[in-house]
């Protein structure tokens, strides 16, 4: 879900994701195809950001 959100953000063309297995790469590719409506995108955007380590 968050990958689809990331791909909706301004200027973002393609998201780099790692994969340890064929299953993971398939899951990530599928995640990118999820369509989020505006309310879902807005809710994710409204999450408090911070500093990932």
């Amino acid at each position: 879900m968050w990958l689809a959100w990331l791909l909706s953000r301004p200027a973002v063309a393609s998201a780099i994701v790692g994969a340890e297995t064929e299953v993971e790469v398939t899951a990530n590719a599928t995640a990118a195809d999820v369509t989020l409506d505006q309310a879902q995108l807005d809710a994710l955007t409204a999450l408090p950001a911070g500093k990932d380590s």
Partner: protein
Amino acid sequence: MEYSLLGPTGVKVSKICLGTATFGVAPDAQEAGRVVHAALDLGINFFDTANVYGATLTFDRAGAPPATEREPAEQILGRALVGRRDDVVIATKSGERRFDPAAGLSRRYIIHQVEHSLRRLGTDYIDVYYAHFPDPDTPLEQTLMVYDDLVRQGKLRYVALSNHPAWQVTQALWIADDRHLAAAPVCAQVKYNLIDRAGEDELAPASQQFGLSIVPLARWMAGCWPACRSRNGSSPVTGDSPVTGDWWVRVH
């Protein structure tokens, strides 16, 4: 799979780019080949690697062979892409200085590293070549001039910046324009996910203004969870308590 134009290049890349930082560790070299082939089957045409990926201490993991015995990620990727080279967009990088004090963005270092990357990847050109990290000891102009030479030699197709602040991206565009260099960055790579959104402050508006793409390193680091927990009472999306971890799993 959906595709995007990469900055001003006219080149279409898949919206998912396969990262290879841990190739040779997890997945191991053999499994990595299968991962690459699965990615190709899914329509992924964009592959991201670096001169230091795979076989450096950064990627050590319990149970994996030591870095000196691991095959570099570029080499594993290049082997997996044999026969498909012209179907894919390969991005690689140099300039990380963490374990190599001689590394940086000098003319001398970059020329060496491009030759090494070409050999490991088994190709005679690199589609997108990133400056992996800023190098405070080398003027950006020197870096862009050697990139320009390498583009004109046919070894690099496009140039890009990774982990550079927006002001340096802007400076690079300015230098390339002023000097008529074929080394204007076409995209900017930055760590960027739902939690770490620093790239939205300056880099995203600058990229939009100048027609670059952002290529987020979307890896969700281990630090996410405590960071989420310390900041939130509950998820604004689902109302779950972050203490249970439910909302993290759902969002993820």
